[in-house]
């Protein structure tokens, strides 16, 4: 298991995390069903507007799944930012992880490592977190 993602998407996610700081940012990358390819980036609104929590708006969530269905797409990546802690799934992230097939990407913009950033990917299945390598391609 590993995640392959374009440099442009990785940059866009980090850019979004800085733009929405101090709130956590979130979004998805979709790809054709069964392909596992992260091809279409869709930033989402953090309806919680919080530095310690994120949640897709309920209507946005339904629209997202409908749209994916209509396009024969699935959610390949679900990402969010941690603003003050490392890019590792929190207990809440693990408790609410509802897409066993998705790559859960965490980015961190915490001050201790600035100007560097972290960009990591995990599988979260039945409460078990497994980190996976990330390949960022041109």
């Amino acid at each position, binding site marked *: 298991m590993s995640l392959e993602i374009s440099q442009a998407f990785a940059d866009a996610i980090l850019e979004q995390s800085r733009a929405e700081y101090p709130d956590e940012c*979130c979004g*998805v990358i979709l790809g054709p069903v069964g392909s596992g390819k992260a091809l279409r980036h869709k930033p*989402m609104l953090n309806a*919680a507007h919080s530095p*310690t*929590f*994120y*949640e*897709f708006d*309920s*209507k946005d*969530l*339904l629209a997202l*799944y409908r749209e994916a269905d209509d396009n024969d797409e699935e959610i390949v990546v*679900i990402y*969010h930012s941690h603003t003050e802690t490392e890019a590792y*799934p*929190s*207990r*809440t*992230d693990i*408790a*609410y*992880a*509802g*897409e*066993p*097939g998705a790559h859960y990407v965490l980015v961190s913009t915490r001050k201790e490592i600035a100007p560097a950033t972290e960009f990591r990917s995990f599988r979260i299945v039945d409460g078990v977190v497994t980190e996976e390598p990330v390949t960022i391609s041109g």
Partner: protein
Amino acid sequence: MSIEVRIPTILRPYTKDQKSVEAAGATLSAVITDLDANYAGLGERLLENGALRRFINVYVNDEDVRFLGGLDAQLKDGDSITILPAVAGG
């Protein structure tokens, strides 16, 4: 009374991998009881202490059931229910 219920990936182990199942009931509560009778264990994944779980979203047609009376939401023949896990975390 037949209601289509769309099942998210994470709950498909309960429905033998079916994306969509049929259920019966005049309210959401009745539909969940019916679902649990046919797909044992599904009810518990949707309810906690008799209420809908906070991080499970249920829609009737296009509307979140929280705005339709929750478990008391009234259903009619041909309605479609969609269950989606919230995308959320800390």
